[in-house]
């Protein structure tokens, strides 16, 4: 296995492990507030879409979990989606993506 590939594999594993680490309940509440209010500026407070695409489980079906986390953390070049890395840990990004994939109540 080339060195680069193994490094990527290690990083992905580390990220997945981080994803398993749940934010504490107070932080979860903050994250959900951020999701509805701040992500909601573009994706709609009900996440049904706006200038940005909808983030419903149906809309995200079939999309790769790690790729979604990468979009949350690093944004989409040339598009309005900004990088949230300064405000979210990887574990928090995984937790948010998982909430979106299963659907918010």
């Amino acid at each position, binding site marked *: 296995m080339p060195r680069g590939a193994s490094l990527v594999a290690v990083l992905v594993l580390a990220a997945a492990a981080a994803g398993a680490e749940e934010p504490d309940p107070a932080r979860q509440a903050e994250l959900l507030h951020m999701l509805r209010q*701040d992500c909601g*500026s573009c994706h*709609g*407070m*009900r996440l*049904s*879409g*706006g*200038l940005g695409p909808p983030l419903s489980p149906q809309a995200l079906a079939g999309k790769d979990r790690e790729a979604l986390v990468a979009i949350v953390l690093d944004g989409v070049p040339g598009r*309005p989606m900004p990088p949230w890395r300064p405000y979210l840990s990887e574990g928090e990004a995984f937790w948010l993506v998982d909430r979106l994939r299963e659907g918010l109540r």
Partner: protein
Amino acid sequence: MKGWPVVVLVGLAFVGVAAAEPRGSGDLGIVIERADGSVLVVDTSARRVLGRIAGLGDLSHAAAVFSPDQRYAYVFGRDGGLSRLDLLEQRLDRRIVQAGNSIGGAISGDGRLVAVANYEPGGVRIFDAATLERVADIPAIGRDGTRSKVVGLEDYGRRRFAFSLYDAGEIWLADLADPQSPRIARFSGIGRLPYDGLVTPDGRYYLAGLFGEDGLVLLDLWQQPPQPRRILEGYGRGEEPLPVYKMPHLEGWAQAGDLLFLPAVGRHELLVVDRRQGFAEVARIAVDGQPVFAVARPDGRQVWVNFAFPANDRVQIVDVPSLATVATLNPGKAVLHIEFTPRSGEAWISARDSGSVVVFDGESLVELARLPARSPSGIFFTARANRMGF
């Protein structure tokens, strides 16, 4: 026997009328409660809430325009809802869901037509202002044949509307003099990802902001035909843009005298252009964050600015003669909107996460009132009825 229920009804109606003094509507307004799908009806003279109207659907992004008599507000919701509110009776007069996803709207100069900008399906739909019956449908199909989200829909007098196609990068002008056959002028290749637009207070210029490029597009609507041209091109000067955590809104951006204050996208700056110098840049004002709204105090002496996350806890005040920031206010958490009363110059500011609308004296900056509201966002006063492009 047949006649007497009528007598009773008339009697009750008379009691109802006698109980309430007739009142004007020129000092009324609404505050959007974005999370609850409701609005507060406010009295700006008394600085108090008169009542709440609920059942307006998804107002997570909402805007409003007013009938010329300032009695009715038309509220555009995220979910395609179009609601007509009677401010005097504080009730929902009628409501339709006209599309799947919407961004805002406008009302014609004669108050007869209400136009809504839709993301899904991309286009503009026009309604009879009295009945909300649909009178025209303008699908936003760009030159490349794809359907676009519509942004920056503004009226510019008579029955004319300007709007931009986000995906296709086009600006369209629609004249609804005959609503049965709208006349549409299309301008393509204007730039990448126009995200919003504004009309100057005199209705002469339409400006669209671009997300995909550093610059704005200007249309002189007095020209026949108008020729789109770029202003503030390359304002980022090749620097890496900063992340934009909330897109600026252009409607209602400040014009003070001949100066226009415009948001840089991905810069923590206001760009100042002079109308009388061909919209050339005359200044840049460093501010604390990505500007979202910049609103001129009615006398044009100051411009008040709010910001995207994470600087959304403050409002900065720019002094127009010196083009410098002179004060910073901290009205609360998640400041979303600023609206001035037209003559007394009081600033009403919504602080979403503090659950308040805070009223400031525009001169002394003294806090005059703090009204409780549930996740307040947009604030719209009936004085908008008398302004083009609002």
